[in-house]
């Protein structure tokens, strides 16, 4: 056996071995760039994997300056869960209504909205109703198969038409100043061609 060879291999001192790390760094940087540019951080409020209904007039609606956007996820369980269990998710918190007569989820939603109303900038209703309208756009992001009843009741709660703390009866107020209505809504949807 010639000198410098051991078991048919070149005998290289360990200290002389150098691994070229540059290609690996290139690949890792590319991966990093890809995830940074293409991904969305899951802290955002659209985390629920729901299929929103398709519409032709859907458009990308930006939140205007000085306005707040609150996303209300609504996903019912018409086909699963006896009694029906409907869920409203706001600010990454789930509020579940177990049963048709359980209005707890609506009550929690109203509490979140009341707090949002208090902190929002407001302007008088152009229809001279005396209401002060908050500069807040509420986005209702409901699953396509959610019962229409649930979405409709969410609309009634956000507009202040019904009172979830009083058995979902019509809201009675003595003056417009008492009301905390949210009237600017967006219904989340997708283009028919989206995969």
């Amino acid at each position: 056996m010639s000198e410098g060879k051991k078991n048919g291999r070149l005998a290289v001192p360990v200290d002389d071995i150098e691994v070229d790390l540059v290609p690996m760094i290139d690949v890792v940087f590319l991966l990093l760039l890809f995830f940074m540019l293409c991904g969305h951080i899951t802290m955002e409020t659209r985390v629920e994997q729901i299929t929103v209904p398709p519409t032709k007039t859907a458009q990308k609606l930006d939140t205007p300056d000085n306005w707040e956007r609150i996303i209300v996820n609504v996903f019912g369980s018409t086909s699963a869960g006896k009694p029906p269990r409907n869920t409203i998710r706001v600010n990454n918190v789930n509020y579940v209504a177990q049963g048709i007569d359980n209005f707890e989820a609506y009550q929690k939603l109203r509490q979140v909205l009341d707090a949002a109303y208090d902190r929002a900038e407001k302007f008088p209703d152009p229809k001279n109703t005396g209401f002060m309208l908050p500069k807040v756009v509420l986005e209702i992001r409901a699953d396509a198969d959610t019962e229409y009843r649930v979405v409709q009741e969410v609309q009634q709660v956000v507009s202040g038409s019904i009172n979830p703390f009083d058995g979902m009866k019509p809201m009675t107020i003595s003056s417009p100043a008492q009301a905390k209505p949210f009237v600017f809504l967006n219904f989340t949807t997708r283009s028919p061609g989206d995969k």
Partner: protein
Amino acid sequence: MSEDPTEAMAKGKIDLVPMIDCIMLLLLFFILTTKFTADEKAIASLLPTDKGQAPTPQTTPVEPPKMINVCIYPEGLVKGFQPSEYQAKYEALKKTVGDVLPTAYLRMGGSEAIVLDGNSFSRKGHKELQANIEIVHQHVHQKLLERENSAVALRKLQDPVVIHCFSGLSWKFALVAYDAVRNYEGSKMGSKMSKDPSEWDNAREVSFAPPRIRNYSARELGNELYEIVNMQ
């Protein structure tokens, strides 16, 4: 044994290991926290503030405007029955096709109803989706055109459209109908909804009818179906 970093620096070599550690941690963070979803869009809507229970300022009484009713109810139901019979038919339908009814009728005023295929509305990439949406849009466009009030110039003064959807049906049916009405309005106004929400009041009023029921008792569901199926 690894080389001393100070010696390596002296030889003109840079130790890449700490940088690789950091990059790997960053990569791991982004891999675990990112989510790939299609961009969602939205339809803008303005809820009326001058209706309902809230006190409103005294105004001169005027004749209430005519409403154009869009009625959406389970496919197969026709006029001429009692509330209890509608209830029985609805229960039978659910036993046959399941709790999420796949199809529904859409009728405007006293016109003939068309069938909405809900299967295509809740599945992404359904091959018949675009065609089904087009059918709804064409029907609604035609019926609204027939009911167009040419005497008024402002869109907001056109007869309001109210969507009456049976509460047991899926949200997708109501939203597709709403979309069709908005599309018609867009064709008349020549523009989409303004970016400024405080200006949304310039469009024709399109709203969803308030819920008719609170409990799922047989009588309430039958009554609701009776009202919607027989509405003009």
